[in-house]
């Protein structure tokens, strides 16, 4: 039960990564825990994923950082939206 993780727009450019598969582990209990784990990859990850106004979505719906994860989800991180 991998997680699919997507990065959009400015985040994708900063991280040099648009999509990845991550093995789900019990430590990744929530969206916030997933972000904490990704931030351990280095200062660029911390800067990007903890920037003001970063959103996350779980299965294509906007989600709070305490949203539970159980594996199999599509998770997306993105900066504030600018459409319209």
């Amino acid at each position, binding site marked *: 039960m991998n997680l699919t993780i997507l990065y959009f727009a400015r985040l994708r450019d900063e991280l040099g990564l648009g999509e990845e598969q991550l093995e789900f582990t019990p430590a990744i209990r929530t969206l916030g825990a997933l972000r904490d784990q990704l931030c351990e990859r280095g200062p660029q990850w911390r800067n990007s994923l903890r920037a003001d106004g970063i959103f996350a979505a779980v299965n294509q*719906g906007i989600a709070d950082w305490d949203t539970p994860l159980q594996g199999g989800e599509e998770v*997306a991180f993105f900066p504030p939206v600018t459409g*319209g």
Partner: protein
Amino acid sequence: MSQSEACHIEVMVQSADFSQAELYERLRADSPAIGAICSFVGLMRDFNQASEVRSMFLEHYPGMTEKVLQDIARQASERWQLRRIVILHRVGELLPSDQIVFVGVSGTHRGEAFAACEFIMDFLKTKAPFWKREQTDNGQRWVDARDSDQQAADRWR
């Protein structure tokens, strides 16, 4: 007409340009009970944050975009008595003067049509996963979100 059940919602995300006339005719179709049609088109300007913009690329999150737009339209249809809602947003490469987005609503009353159309635009601006990247003479840049858009959406609470 009752509130949400009679409201017909159409959401489109596409790279092709659109005919405002054709979308207007959809809003007008088949109902002599419609008294009011309000529509909005957002167009690409050639100027932003003090430099000229040559072109723009509109990125989105396929799948989520359509869900969010449907959800915004549904909220509008529950809040006001509407007959039809049409939302069309373009993605991909755009040039100055290009049409970017169409939002139109038809219903019985003028005030409701105006309110619903502006409500949808305000939430589209702050909730739908689109991102603009501009090409200027100094290179590419991601467009920053505006506080004024968030404030516009907050008015509806």
